[in-house]
């Protein structure tokens, strides 16, 4: 078969172009100009998980990237999905080539899988906290971020504030310098964990699934349980299937700045001790306190203040220059300050990791998953932060990487 080539003269081209322009109304925002952003600088975006924090998360993405919302997806919208702008299946959203970034605000049992799938599809990701439901998920997100060169930012921003504070910068420098051999630091976070508020119901009998809800898709990688309304819409936080109670829900906020300040965004605690009643198999319940110790001795204490006797084992203890000898102080003074953190928008533009990148977010949420594992098995656990396994406790280690319901997998 012959190739047919159509050659246009310059005159013909200009005539045809003029005709097209004459028939097309071009809105001002398309052309740019003062106060308007040209389309080459806007980003097509989608929101996946539209209840609760959804609109807030998307607003952040919109502001950072000058994003235009092209699609919204929520499993509760079987009665209104048109598969054009409103979806119930995130896979159909990720197939779209005009979407470059997604905001994810589903319950946390979907965070890792949708983040990974979005990066596999070439999208950048802003994902609500907590980043994951269990430890292995975070490692898989970090691997996908690296493999595909995509930008991931967790939806909590405390580290951006402390990274500009001279006192916190100094603490980070001390911690990262290697000059402090045995760290005496103890950070105690007291209260605010919403333990009771985000615990689940027992004695709840199944109820009929609402017609507008795709229950199978809601459960996703988690076990397909009988439906109960308390498992959906915010109160999902009280079930191990979807989250880890108030501890994981609140504390990625609390410890996101801590892991930056104390230089723990590339490692994890090695020992965890808790005081809690025996855990329920499906429902997140009460706990009194949690101690998490890093290899260098730095300790984080979560003092729940909602159950059991008051915490009295350790006192808060900061880190300062006084912890270094004269020679070490001189060495520290010669060391450079840490590099400023990149916002999500800046990271997308420069294609360099965001301040709340997957590795950093994973290391923060790992603190909370380890705490919950210790609560769930009711004993002290030891963790290897390099292999990311629990050492010498097979039962506890099974909670590091939970099996997923097919067809979902990491």
């Amino acid at each position: 078969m012959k190739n047919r080539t159509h050659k246009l003269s310059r005159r013909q081209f200009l005539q045809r172009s003029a005709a097209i322009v004459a028939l097309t109304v071009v809105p001002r925002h398309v052309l740019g100009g003062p106060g308007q952003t040209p389309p080459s600088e806007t980003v097509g975006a989608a929101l996946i998980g539209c209840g609760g924090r959804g609109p807030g998360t998307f607003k952040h993405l919109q502001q950072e990237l000058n994003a235009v919302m092209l699609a919204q997806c929520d499993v509760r919208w079987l009665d209104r999905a048109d598969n054009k702008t409103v979806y119930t299946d995130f896979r159909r959203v990720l197939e779209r080539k005009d979407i470059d970034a997604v905001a994810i605000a589903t319950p946390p049992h979907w965070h890792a899988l949708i983040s990974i799938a979005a990066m596999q599809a070439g999208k950048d990701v802003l994902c609500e906290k907590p980043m994951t439901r269990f430890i292995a998920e975070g490692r898989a997100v970090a691997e996908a971020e690296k493999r595909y060169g995509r930008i991931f930012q967790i939806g909590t921003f405390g580290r951006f504030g402390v990274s500009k504070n001279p006192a916190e910068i100094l603490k980070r420098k001390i911690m990262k310098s290697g000059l402090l051999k045995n760290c005496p630091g103890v950070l105690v976070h007291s209260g605010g964990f919403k333990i009771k508020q985000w615990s689940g119901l027992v004695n709840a009998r199944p109820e009929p699934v609402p017609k507008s809800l795709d229950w199978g898709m809601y459960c996703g990688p988690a076990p397909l349980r009988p439906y109960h309304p308390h498992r959906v819409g915010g109160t999902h936080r009280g079930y191990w299937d979807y989250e880890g109670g108030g501890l994981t829900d609140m504390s990625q906020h609390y410890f996101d700045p801590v892991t930056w300040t104390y230089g723990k965004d590339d490692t994890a605690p090695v020992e965890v001790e808790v005081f809690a009643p025996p855990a329920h198999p499906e429902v997140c319940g009460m706990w009194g306190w949690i101690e998490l110790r890093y290899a260098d001795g730095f300790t984080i204490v979560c003092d729940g203040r909602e159950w059991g006797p008051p915490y009295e084992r350790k006192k808060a203890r900061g880190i300062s220059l006084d912890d270094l000898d004269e020679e070490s102080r001189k060495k520290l003074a010669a060391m450079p300050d840490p590099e400023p953190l990149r916002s999500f928008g800046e990271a997308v533009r420069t294609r360099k990791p965001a301040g709340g990148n997957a590795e950093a977010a994973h290391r923060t949420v790992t603190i909370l998953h380890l705490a919950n594992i210790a609560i769930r098995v009711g004993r002290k656990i030891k963790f290897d932060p390099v292999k990311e396994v629990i050492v010498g406790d097979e039962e506890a280690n099974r909670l590091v990487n939970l099996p997923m319901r097919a067809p979902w997998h990491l």
Partner: protein
Amino acid sequence: MATTKPNVAALVEQMPEVDHPGKPSTFTGPDPAVAERIFAEIFTGGRASLLELLAILRSPCDEDFKNYKAGYVLHGLALRAGRPGNEKQRRLLAETLASQLDSRKHSKAVKAFLMQELQTVGGREAVKALGKHLLDDDLCEPATQALLSIREGAAEALRAALPKTKGKSRATIIQALGVLRDARSAAALKKSLDDADGDARLAAAWALARIGDPGAMDAMLKLADKAEGWERIQLTNACLLLAENRAAGKKADAARIYTHLRDTRQDPKERHVREAAEKALSQ
């Protein structure tokens, strides 16, 4: 050693009431020391006491479900039995749970709960009993999840079930063989690349990628090239994963996959795949 047989039902009733009795409710939980004493006492009764507990266990799905207490106590026993160095108690509990999976006394919902507890505390001794339920559409998923946590001996049970499964259970079992990186399933998994079910096809490609099977390379690249939408994204990812797993042993195989992806992913919206392949080739 206890001289009298523990009254299991009475011990179960010692668990605290929920915060709002008579309604689905949050609960505060017992004093850990009190719970420990109760769990220890039940174990003194051996298998007979464990069976007594299982006899009163009901799921919220069952008509005659009363309250959470029996299930909570069973889970407490599993946590106690799973403590490091407690092998004798762990084995006793796991064998007792496994022995009830075929019982007609228990509903499927209760059996799913027992499987969930085996996911916590089960070992090799529970594999055979779990394997029998892989062909049951209602129980395949919890049985598989328990097997995946147990790991030892799981691949044999899953491999044996694969040729007999259909529908949703098929994708579940294929995926599980991938989780276990079961190289002995490679031939069966390759056949599943042509499965009529999309989930089974994708699961097979992912499983072969995890196994790092060189014989699957051409078929997977071909499938990925032809596919569109979600399937293309997933199959392309499986090819990258296969390349990573081949790179550890045979770099030429990995290079062939990367080169193919670099040269065929020319759509600007697949630039990230091209770049991933280029990056891997440059290392």
